[in-house]
Structure formats: structure tokens, C-alpha cells
């Protein structure tokens, strides 16, 4: 088995398909190796909170039976998949990175999980994350931080840090994450993998534990653009269990990965590069030069409302979070602090079980929604959100895609930014605009700093134009964007 285990870290979906077809390994053999490998490697990164060996073997057996019977085992047959622990899995513990849900075993599966397993994917475990997806470093998990596989003394980014780390480390081939304000793209950039936030509504949120409902997305991680696109292909599309899921048809993303990006118009927003003197900025500028070599027409554009995105975002997301997290009151979800009266039980349960960042956001959200403040804060933020969306609408009348940094800096050291919540919030500046506008956006690896830390380039396109986004990212990856300066 050890030969397979060694190979596992670099496998792509296509290689797994060929391996199964050529009978080089069975799905059960692969699943067994994948879980063993992930368990052994987890001591380094703490990327997984729960392993699901039994469920993985059952899924793999179904794949092997189909292959033996000559049936199509599905486009993701046998593919080891990690699922962020804010996405519910029937019978498999789902903690949301919170002490409050330490023993929560969901009675149903998220729609994305159902679709992936129907396509043959094999869930090997649930990944660590910031508590209820609130954070940019994965240090807000009640189960300890995740370490970045590229540098173990650094954060993997957040909040989907465990999913990004698992894919980077090679313990999962692909993973699901969630993104409300950069929680897929930022960890993807910090760990050097591909991370995709699709159009709002492109993927059903049914079974995604709600953080900020008007901003929440499920999206994939992969080591290649193609693998991430294959996962999105499977999970995208209307679901009647989520009224906000989109009716728009899902095109064949893979068929469009033709490398033809000549004369594609790329916008580079000046507001995203002002004062960006870091090594990350230099790598992104080099990435843009690569796009020009591929024949893209690069022009400067302006997204003038950018500087107001962080304050608008932290009003909207905390307001919605304070409502969504009201359900954790000690009645239904496993954890309760004993008290004489009902209202005391609510207060004590929540006070004892939520971590510092959740409390901070519940408090800010409750404050901005409290009597007399609604117009000044929430309504004001929604108006600013409209301006940010309008910035993008105008820009996309001129260009086909927008290219920016994902983060002003690469992965920082554990503990480095923990004491300054505002500074941590401000570091989300490049990613939250895409969530506010609801447009598709992704991080694609764009080289490494001199110290060997990965840097990701962000690509944003029009609503539902994941196709154009993937085409550009794939062409960039094939042109060597992956290794960049190396």
C-alpha cells in the first residue's frame, strides 16, 4: 500500500479515473489509503476534526460495485474529498469549529454533499475552521488552529483553513469550503491551492450552517483549476431546498478550458494596488504580465467604492450572524448550561460556549440592529453594498474579467494578528467586495515569495460567468502561473 500512499498527495481527479478504469487500484483501496494517510499527516497540521473511515469505505464499495457491474461510477468516482465542518453530514459529527456543537450529529446531508456522493466522491473527513466560519486565520477554532503545510509556524488562512491545508498537504484531492467574506480564496492563496467562490446562488446553501445568509457561499478547493471546476460542475444548480439557489443553467465548465484567452479584456482596479508594495503585490504584477503574454488585453479600471467595503461588510455580516446564531440557545443543539430559569439558561449557555470572535460579532450585529440604529447602520451598509455592486457592473461593461491580489500579504505567523480584530478585518479588503457583489471569484496560485510562501491571484467575472473565470485561471495555470518566479 505504501506506494499508493506516497502517490496520493499528488493525485488529480483524472488520474483517479484512469487508475480505477485501468484497475491499478480499487476505490476501496484508495479510500483506505486516503484515510490512513490523512490521519497520519494530521498531527502536522490539525486540518481534520473528524475522520469518516466507515462512510468513506461504504462510498468506495458502491463505486467498486458499479465498476464491476460495468456501470458508470460517476464523474468523481473514488475521489477523496474533505468537507468543511460547517457543512452538515448525516450521522457524521459537524462542529462548526465550535465547542457548542462538539457532540452535534446532523440528521440530514447538505445538498452539495448529496450531489458529490452521488457523483462517486468519497468523504474522508470534516475539516477544521474558524468558529462558525468567523475569522481569517483559523485561530478562532475551539479545536486549535490549523498549521499551514507550506510553513508550519504560520496560519493557513481562514475561515476554511482546514480544507485549504488538506488539499495543499495532499491528504484530500479536493475539498468543500464556505466563503462569506473571503473564507475560501484567502486560505487557498495562503496554502497555494485553487479556491473558488461561485456566483451567489450558484450552489445550494441547504445544509450550510448559516453565518450571514445574504453572503454565504459553498465552493470547492482543488490542486488544479480543472479539479475545482469538476467539483463545482457537480454541486452547482437549482435546489428547491434553497429558495435563493439560482435557476440559471449550469454550462459544461471543462469543455470550455480551451486555453483561448487571446483578446480577453482584463481589468486591473487601481484601488487594489494603491500602496501595495509587498512581495505579494510584486508577484501579482508579474502574474498580470503573464496574462499579457497569453494575449489578454490588460487595462486599468476603477472600483471607487472599494475603501468602504470593509465597514459595509462588517455591518451586514454581523447583523445577519447575530440573527442566525440566536438559535444556539441551549434548547436544541446538544450544549446547555444548567440554570434555574429559561432566560438564565439561554444567557449562560451562550456565554460559556461561544468563543471570543463569535461574541464580538454577535455583539456588533445586535448593536447595529438595535432600536434606533437600523437606518444608520444596516440600511446604510445595504446602500453602500449596492454601490459596490454597481462599481462591478460598470467595470464589466468594459472588461471580461478583473484581476487583483487575494491578500495584501502571504500567510502570517500564528498569533501575530490575534490581538487586533480591526487589523484582521481590514486584511479582508480584496476578497469581501466579490461576496458583497455576489459575483464569481477565485484564487489561483501565482508563485511564492522568497521565503517560499504561496501567493494567490484573484480573478473575478460577471454573475454566472464561472466559465470565463475558469478558462482564464486554467490558461494562467498552464502558462506557469502555478510556479511563478520559481
Amino acid at each position, binding site marked *: 500500500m505504501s506506494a499508493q500512499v506516497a502517490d496520493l498527495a499528488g493525485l488529480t481527479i483524472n488520474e483517479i479515473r484512469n487508475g480505477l478504469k485501468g484497475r491499478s487500484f480499487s476505490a476501496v483501496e484508495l479510500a483506505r489509503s486516503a484515510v490512513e494517510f490523512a490521519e497520519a499527516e494530521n498531527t502536522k497540521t490539525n486540518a481534520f476534526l473528524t475522520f469518516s473511515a466507515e462512510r468513506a469505505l461504504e462510498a468506495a464499495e458502491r463505486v467498486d460495485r458499479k465498476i464491476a457491474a460495468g456501470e458508470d461510477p460517476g464523474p468523481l468516482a473514488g475521489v477523496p474529498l474533505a468537507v468543511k465542518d460547517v457543512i452538515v453530514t448525516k450521522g457524521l459529527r459537524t462542529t462548526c469549529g465550535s465547542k457548542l456543537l462538539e457532540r452535534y450529529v446532523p440528521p440530514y446531508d447538505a445538498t452539495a454533499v448529496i450531489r458529490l456522493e452521488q457523483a462517486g466522491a468519497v468523504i474522508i473527513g470534516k475539516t477544521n475552521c474558524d468558529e462558525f466560519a468567523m475569522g481569517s486565520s483559523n485561530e478562532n477554532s475551539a479545536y486549535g488552529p490549523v498549521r499551514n503545510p507550506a510553513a508550519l509556524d504560520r496560519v493557513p488562512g481562514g475561515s476554511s483553513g482546514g480544507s485549504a491545508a488538506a488539499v495543499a498537504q495532499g491528504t484530500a484531492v479536493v475539498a468543500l469550503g464556505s466563503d462569506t467574506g473571503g473564507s475560501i480564496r484567502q486560505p487557498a492563496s495562503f496554502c497555494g491551492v485553487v479556491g473558488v467562490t461561485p456566483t451567489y446562488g450558484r450552489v445550494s446553501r441547504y445544509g450550510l450552517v448559516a453565518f450571514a445568509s445574504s453572503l454565504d457561499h459553498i465552493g470547492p478547493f482543488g490542486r488544479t483549476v480543472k479539479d475545482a471546476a469538476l467539483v463545482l460542475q457537480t454541486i452547482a444548480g437549482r435546489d*428547491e431546498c434553497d429558495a435563493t439557489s439560482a435557476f440559471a443553467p449550469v454550462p459544461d465548465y471543462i469543455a470550455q478550458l480551451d486555453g483561448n484567452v487571446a483578446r480577453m479584456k482584463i481589468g486591473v482596479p487601481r484601488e487594489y494596488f494603491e500602496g501595495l508594495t509587498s512581495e505579494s503585490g510584486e508577484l501579482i504584477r508579474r502574474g498580470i504580465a503573464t496574462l499579457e503574454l497569453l494575449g489578454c488585453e490588460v487595462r486599468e479600471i476603477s472600483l471607487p467604492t472599494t475603501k468602504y467595503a470593509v465597514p459595509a461588510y462588517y455591518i451586514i455580516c454581523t447583523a445577519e450572524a447575530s440573527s442566525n446564531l440566536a438559535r444556539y440557545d441551549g434548547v436544541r443543539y*446538544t450544549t*446547555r448550561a444548567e440554570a434555574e*430559569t429559561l432566560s438564565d*439558561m439561554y444567557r449562560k449557555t451562550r456565554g460559556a460556549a461561544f468563543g471570543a470572535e463569535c461574541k464580538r460579532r454577535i455583539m456588533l450585529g445586535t448593536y447595529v440592529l438595535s432600536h434606533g440604529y437600523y437606518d444608520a447602520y444596516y440600511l446604510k451598509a445595504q446602500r453602500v453594498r449596492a454601490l459596490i455592486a454597481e462599481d462591478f457592473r460598470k467595470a464589466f461593461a468594459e472588461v471580461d474579467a478583473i484581476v487583483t491580489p487575494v491578500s495584501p500579504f502571504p500567510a502570517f505567523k500564528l498569533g501575530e494578528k490575534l490581538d487586533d480584530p480591526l487589523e484582521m478585518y481590514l486584511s479582508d479588503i480584496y476578497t469581501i467586495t466579490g461576496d458583497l457583489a455576489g459575483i464569481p471569484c477565485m484564487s489561483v496560485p501565482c508563485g511564492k515569495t522568497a521565503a517560499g510562501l504561496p501567493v494567490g491571484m484573484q480573478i473575478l467575472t460577471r454573475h454566472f460567468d464561472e466559465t470565463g473565470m475558469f478558462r482564464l485561471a486554467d490558461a494562467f495555470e498552464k502558462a506557469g502561473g502555478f510556479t511563478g518566479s520559481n
Partner: protein
Amino acid sequence: MKITEQEVRYVAGLANLSLTDQEIARLSRDLDEILTHIDTLNELDTSNVQPMAQVLYDAGETATLREDRERATLGNAAALANAPAAGAGYYKVPRVIER
């Protein structure tokens, strides 16, 4: 000062969150800093801008309606399986009426 400790205690009451004195002090500082930053939004004139409540709605207003089909529900046992305290098919909570 955007927010006082007294206001922080009031908001914690609204949020049903018991906080230690230490947490109150820390949150007063943090919220004050964040709310001061949020004030930059007032630089923007938004009087003629419609608030954006949802990202997009790409279908007619009846499109989300579906046929009323019978479907198996979760069932009482599964629904209560995660309850900290349950009995006779219900969630159990401490005394509600306070004397």
C-alpha cells in the same frame, strides 16, 4: 467614545449573552474601535441609492413555488436526537414562568 460599557451590557442583554467583566471591558474597546471605523461610511452620500437586500433574482416571482408533494419528515426521534434534554417527544427546558 462610540459606545460605553453600560451600552455594551445592555446589548449583551439583548443578545442573551452572559459576559464577564473582563469580556465587557475588552468588547467595549473593540466595538468602539470598529464602530469608529464604520463611521467612514458617512463620507458617502447614499440618499439616492436603493438598498441591496439580495444579490440577484433571476426568475419570475412564482418560479420558486413548487408542487405540494408529500415527503417524509425527519421524525420525532431524529429531530430530538441532539436535544440536551428531551422527554415525551418534546424539548425540555427550565421553568419558564418566573415568580
